[in-house]
């Protein structure tokens, strides 16, 4: 063998030298060399090398390892910690500001991340999650507009395809259709009866495959038979316990549905977990809905495919589209394509942009991740600034250490360990805060988040976070401090170079940019939310109660109306086919009118009401008159809103004919536009007629102001009399209306909270910086005073520096904030204007907070007797 590589492995040798005590190095290396050469002589070189490694590893014994048992190292570490603790204790106010600032930042970060994590968990618990895809439509209209819809109606051209996908496309293993029974516009909790027990429950319709595709645990009965035919029902544990003593007992029993159908309980499933976006108390076969045995809640049917393992969704949707292409209804003027969206995204990515899934809650999740990182950065910068500012006090210590012979590395070590100690304290505090405030946070956000304290990843990521923050926050100050030159420092106060001052100021500006951004966002969010809840909807939403029309309520409507109106607390009673704040039904084809042009498409919201609708709602009639019970022909009359008039393009509407489906009549009046649904959308054309014999809809009751209690008591009495088979169940319109904006409200509340925190943290930083500056400029101010400057002058001079920084931050941030906020507001059809005063307000708030923070220090500076500051030199 060539004697080329026959020396012991270098890496192993280096490893050995790294951990081995120095005094052992010679003998051990010698022994191992001898061993190596004797092995190499006896066998292969490779084995000798392996053996060398083996021997090295076996020297990992307590007697031979240096670092841990090395006494000086230990002493240094203990020394570092001791000094660290002492210095933390010696300046309490500074330490408290610094630690609590970081703790606040960390706690906010943790809270937001817990929230984000919880949002991302939605629909992620299904074991086949990777193979589940929702079908969505991309509809290309004649105009070229692309609309997206998660809706997969079974009645259009795609129906055949969606149903038979299993047999036509080999990659599709299973198909499920899902529709709720409680969504708007027509859905509502359904009444179930067994014996004397009556309960209202919200459930859904699904295909028999449902329990095979999704992981909802069946705890009694069979998964296969759960909803195998139209008379089967699967109920939740909660529902089972309402009617029966135990889940097992429910199996095979029958439940009456809406006083109409009987269902056999085939399975009981565990209540849908909190991370399920599908919510249902019971499930029945979707055939019931298709055969019109039960009523539709909305047109929305979600179709989910279980794809073969490893199947590519792109290829599958291509096949689906190829199959669909030959079967489309050409006359509709629409071109429909099919796409697949991962099922687990349906909650977060619920919107559509240009026909593709986009937006939705994901936007908020991203927003909050950004906010969390912002706050953490702000907190770290804070820590850096405060620690650097403290160096004025530490300068002498550093200098003396250096003179005595401490190396730069050792100093860095010492400061890093002090900062590590502080970050660990902050961490401890942050976890304590999170732990104690979590219940409040849950209430705040309407979630049920638990700290994953049993999960390893949680602690792991906490540890990583701790190290990153302590390094990010501590690295600069340690390097800065250890670089001080002793001769200069010992001679006078610590002087900072222009570069390091510039860096610190830059950090403050950056910190304030983030805070101002958050502040402006908060002001805009709050304003918009207030605008929604307080702006006039076109009707008076206070003191309105509505109830579902069911049982005898329709057939005995006139009796009900007369009885109720005479009861105490009740001002007026009327009815409507849809709740006034959520009229979601929209059609275009069935509505015709005098002078309609060919191909003119207007989407109307048709609604049928009682005679007194305009009065009970407080709607304004701008032209013509409202419905009148005493005019016989009014049961065939129509009213429209201004928007309808506008879009239909007719003038002098009164007396013109209009028709909805088979019903044809004259327009008798025009109503001023009012909001019939979410503020996000524009007011739509409305066409109203009178139908007091519809079997569905809502009874609307206006109570007398301040007499809600009496009104409810009266209502309960009358309803029990007239409609004994159904539980008395009512809703307040204003509360329900606010529920439409739940996500905006949560976001706005969270933003308020975190913007407040960010500003507090930034101010702590500013406080530190002003303390630092005050120490730096004592002499300057002393000289100024001696030369005759008065107090106001000194305070202005001192505060100027900080106002400039904050103003700079404000100038940088405002355009960016304007762009971002404008983008967000585009999502609302009715929105506040981004007027200058929003920014002015934010600026004013920031400047006054700055002045307030700095004024404490500046006052102190101005008060000092110059004789004292100038005495020593």
């Amino acid at each position, binding site marked *: 063998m060539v004697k080329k590589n026959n020396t012991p492995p270098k890496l192993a040798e280096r490893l050995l030298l790294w951990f081995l005590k120095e005094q052992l190095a*010679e*003998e*051990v*290396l*010698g*022994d*191992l*060399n*001898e*061993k190596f*050469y*004797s092995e190499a002589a006896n066998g292969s070189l490779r084995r000798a090398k392996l053996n060398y490694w*083996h*021997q090295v590893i*076996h*020297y*990992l*014994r307590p*007697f*031979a390892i240096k670092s841990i048992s090395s006494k000086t190292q230990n002493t240094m570490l203990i020394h570092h910690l001791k000094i660290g603790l002492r210095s933390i204790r010696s300046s309490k106010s500074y330490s408290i500001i610094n630690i609590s600032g970081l703790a606040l930042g960390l706690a906010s970060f943790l809270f937001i991340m817990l929230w984000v994590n919880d949002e991302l968990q939605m629909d992620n618990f299904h074991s086949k999650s990777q193979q589940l895809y929702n079908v969505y439509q991309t509809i290309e209209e004649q105009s070229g507009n692309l609309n997206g819809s998660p809706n997969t109606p079974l009645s259009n051209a795609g129906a055949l395809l969606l149903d038979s996908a299993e047999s036509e496309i080999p990659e599709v293993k299973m198909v499920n259709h899902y529709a709720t029974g409680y969504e708007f516009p027509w859905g509502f909790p359904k009444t179930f009866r067994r014996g004397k027990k009556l309960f209202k429950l919200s459930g859904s319709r699904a295909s028999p495959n449902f329990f095979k595709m999704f992981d909802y645990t069946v705890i009694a009965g069979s998964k296969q038979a759960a909803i195998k035919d139209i008379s089967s029902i699967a109920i939740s544990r909660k529902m089972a316990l309402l009617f029966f003593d135990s889940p097992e007992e429910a199996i095979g029993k029958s439940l009456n549905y809406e006083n109409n159908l009987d269902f056999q309980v085939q399975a009981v499933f565990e209540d849908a977990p909190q991370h399920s976006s599908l919510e249902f108390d019971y499930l029945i076969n979707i055939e019931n809905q298709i055969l019109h045995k039960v009523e539709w809640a909305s047109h929305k049917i979600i179709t989910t495919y279980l794809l073969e393992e490893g199947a590519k969704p792109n290829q599958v949707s291509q096949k689906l589209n190829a199959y669909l292409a030959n079967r489309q209804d050409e006359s509709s003027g629409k071109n429909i394509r099919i796409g697949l969206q991962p099922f687990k995204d349906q909650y977060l990515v619920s919107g559509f942009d240009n026909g593709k899934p986009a937006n939705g809650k994901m936007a908020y999740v991203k927003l909050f991740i950004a906010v969390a990182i912002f706050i953490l950065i702000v907190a770290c910068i804070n820590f850096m600034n405060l620690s650097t500012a403290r160096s004025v006090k530490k300068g002498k210590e550093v200098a003396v250490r250096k003179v005595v012979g401490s190396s730069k590395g050792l100093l860095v070590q010492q400061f890093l360990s002090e900062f590590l100690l502080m970050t660990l304290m902050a961490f401890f505090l942050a976890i304590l805060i999170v732990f104690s405030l979590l219940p409040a946070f849950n209430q705040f956000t309407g979630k049920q988040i638990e700290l994953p304290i049993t999960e390893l990843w949680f602690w792991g990521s906490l540890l990583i976070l701790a190290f990153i923050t302590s390094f990010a926050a501590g690295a600069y100050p340690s390097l800065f401090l250890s670089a001080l030159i002793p001769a200069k420092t010992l001679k006078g106060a610590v002087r900072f170079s222009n570069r390091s001052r510039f860096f610190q100021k830059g950090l403050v500006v950056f910190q304030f940019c983030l805070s101002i951004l958050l502040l402006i966002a908060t002001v805009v969010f709050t304003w918009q939310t207030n605008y929604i809840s307080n702006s006039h909807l076109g009707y008076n939403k206070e003191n309105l109660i509505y109830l579902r029309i069911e049982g005898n309520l329709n057939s005995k409507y006139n009796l009900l109306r007369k009885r109720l109106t005479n009861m105490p607390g009740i001002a007026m009673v009327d009815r409507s086919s849809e709740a006034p704040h959520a009229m979601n039904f929209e059609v275009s084809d069935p509505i015709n009118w005098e002078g309609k042009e060919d191909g003119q498409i207007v989407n109307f919201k048709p609604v049928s009401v009682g005679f007194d609708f305009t009065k009970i709602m407080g709607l304004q009639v701008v032209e013509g008159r409202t419905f009148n019970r005493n005019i016989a022909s009014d049961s065939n009359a129509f009213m429209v809103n201004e928007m309808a008039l506008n879009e239909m393009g007719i003038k002098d509407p009164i007396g013109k004919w209009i028709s909805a489906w088979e019903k044809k009549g004259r327009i008798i009046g025009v109503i001023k536009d009012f909001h019939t649904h979410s503020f996000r959308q524009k007011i739509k054309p409305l066409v109203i007629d009178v139908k007091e014999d519809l079997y569905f809809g809502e009874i609307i009751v206006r109570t007398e102001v301040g007499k809600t209690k009496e009104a409810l008591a009266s209502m309960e009495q009358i309803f029990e009399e007239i409609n004994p088979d159904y539980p008395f169940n009512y809703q307040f319109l204003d509360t329900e209306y606010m529920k439409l904006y739940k996500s905006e409200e949560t976001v706005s509340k969270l933003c308020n909270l975190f913007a407040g925190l960010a500003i507090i943290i930034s101010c702590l930083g500013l406080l530190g910086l002003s303390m630092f500056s005050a120490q730096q400029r004592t002499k300057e101010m002393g000289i100024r005073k001696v030369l005759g400057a008065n107090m106001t002058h000194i305070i202005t001079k001192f505060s100027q520096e900080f106002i400039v920084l904050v103003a700079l931050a404000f100038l940088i941030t405002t355009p960016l904030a304007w762009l971002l906020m404008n983008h967000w507001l585009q999502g609302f059809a009715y929105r506040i204007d981004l007027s200058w005063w929003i920014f002015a307000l934010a600026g004013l708030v920031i400047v006054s907070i700055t002045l307030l923070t700095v004024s404490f220090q500046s006052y102190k500076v101005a008060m000092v007797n110059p004789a004292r500051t100038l005495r020593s030199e």
Partner: protein
Amino acid sequence: MKETRLGEFEEVILLLVGILEEDAYAFKISDEFEAQTGRSVSIGAVHSTLNRLSEKGFLNSEMGASSPERGGRRKRIYTITALGHRVLTEAKDFRVSLWNQFPGLANG
């Protein structure tokens, strides 16, 4: 007080130090151990035991000569101390007395 009992492995190593005399250093001892017992042992394990025996006062050591295959590094030569001798003798005596009480062997 220092631990003065002798474990089995310690006893063997102590004896090997006696056997090897001038050559009693960690590598040679582990080599000899493998040759005599047929069991493999790492130099580190032997070194650790030698270290422990020295702490107990059974061994003395000093740096010896170097050789080219050691890369010119010196070796640490171990020698048994008087205390080490006594402990070894005691251990041997104890065994002999036990053997003598063993009836299966007493009568040959």
